[in-house]
């Protein structure tokens, strides 16, 4: 099918998004053509600024528009407790639950040799540095409950164990093999309650 170049470029951009196939991309592209110009401009600006203005917090690795991020700066939160997650989306899931008052550390992935992802490719080194000077007493490992998430938790546990910091693994009230981000708030808070010592 032939489309004028601006449209085919737009279609092409949409197909780069996850979960969007060629058919949906065409539908979205034509929808954009029907939108008010102001809305389209806002949309374009949000895309660019989301990318440009957000960085990773130099302390915890979460995405933020200020460094350190608002959670790391929040003095009312418990500095002695760090919850380690794989993804910024996991932080959002945890925060929704409103029961965790410690701080976070975002790994941005899990160790997976078959995908060429080693410990140096995820945000582990900065976690180890953080543990050296922050007076942390407990590390909660909330990586995903699949093979890679488990392995990543075990790896971190091995590194941290000598320091004497208490290490717990979030309990599997979560669907096995499922992703944390899909867990509803009830199962998640159950999982926090029942965490086990590693």
């Amino acid at each position: 099918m032939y489309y004028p170049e601006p449209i085919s470029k737009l279609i092409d951009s949409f197909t780069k998004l996850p979960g969007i196939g060629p058919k949906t991309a065409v539908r979205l592209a034509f929808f954009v053509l029907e939108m008010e110009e102001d809305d389209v401009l806002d949309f374009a600006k949000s895309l660019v600024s989301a990318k440009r203005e957000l960085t990773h917090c130099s302390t915890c690795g979460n995405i933020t528009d200020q460094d350190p991020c608002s959670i790391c700066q929040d003095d009312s939160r418990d500095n002695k407790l760090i919850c380690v997650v794989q993804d910024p989306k996991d932080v959002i899931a945890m925060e929704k639950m409103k029961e965790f008052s410690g701080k976070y550390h975002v790994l941005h992935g899990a160790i997976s040799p078959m995908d060429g992802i080693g410990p140096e490719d995820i945000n582990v080194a900065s976690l180890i540095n953080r543990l050296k000077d922050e007076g942390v007493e407990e590390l909660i490992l909330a990586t995903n409950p699949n093979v890679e998430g488990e392995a990543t938790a075990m790896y971190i546990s091995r590194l941290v164990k000598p320091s004497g910091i208490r290490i717990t693994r979030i309990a599997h009230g979560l669907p096995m093999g499922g992703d944390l981000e899909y867990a509803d708030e009830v199962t998640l808070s159950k999982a926090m309650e029942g965490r086990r010592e590693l």
Partner: protein
Amino acid sequence: MHISELSLRSFRNYNDLSLTFDDQINVIIGDNAQGKTNLMEAIYLLAFSRSHRTPRDKELIQWDKEYAKIKGSIIKRNRRFPLEIIISNKGKKAKLNHIEQKRLSDYIGAMNVVMFAPEDLNLVKGSPQVRRRFIDMEIGQVQPAYVYHLAQYQKVLKQRNSLLKDLQRKPEADRTMLAVLTDQLIEHGALIVERRFRFLQLLRKWAAPIHEGISRQLEALEITYDASVKVSEDMDLETIVPIYQEKFTDIETKEVERGTTLAGPHRDDLMFFVNGKDVQTYGSQGQQRTTALSLKLAEIELIKSEVGEYPILLLDDVLSELDDFRRSHLLHTIQGKVQTFVSTTSVEGIEHEVIDQAGIFRVDNGTIDIEK
């Protein structure tokens, strides 16, 4: 348990088919390449969500069609429930009671099937992989959680093999991650071996007398587990784990050198002995066939004792391969208790008594006529 209805949509050479079965014996008659095995395959697929003859699901979709759909109505403990498998280019969906099951271990086990086909001779003659698949599938259908552990094990194994490949190139690199993956491998591996031991004890208990019966008291069948890590059947999980740990410590250097995992349930095998002699090496064709048949019949009884109901039996093209004695022994064993599907090119050679009571289905190029 039995399957009362089956409907197929663009599955293999069946365009649109809907059948009701006899709860005892169903005979599928047809010339070569008409769709007998395809029908058996569909029933097998409903139980295991995969084919018995191909790992590539796409082959099951009728040529030039978008998807294949298999639906069955199963009756178990006097209750009826539907099973459904939909295969498309995008993947596979499995529904139990109309609800999609995301994990194989949540689907498998609802319907139990035992299949005996000519290629089952490979159970004795073939590579260790064939025997591992046999034991894994059979445990899986009586103990669905096993399928989950097996999948976890295979995932860890893949990760560990990738890491060992990396270490092969850089042996001086940090080995913490290897230690982690070894722990993970042992966690799932030891469990798999332990479950296999428990299963073998059951299988042996049923297979020995059955084999004695089919061989007219002439042969004694023994089954042993050939383990890549020296553990034995009297051991429990707590005993197996440290032996595994020791083994992996011993072979670490070798594993890094070779860049792959050298021990574990993926390297184990089963061995069959008749009157003390290894059937794979010394058995005649007939002995190998009898051994395979005994194992299949043992499975039927095993499932009955574990699940509480007899499984559905699929006999694809095997009746004609058995001599008169074995054939009538087989038919006698299943009579009146096991819903059975028998495929054949002609009814000659099958006892009239059986045929008289059976549902007869004539297959002709993807269409089926019910004769009775």
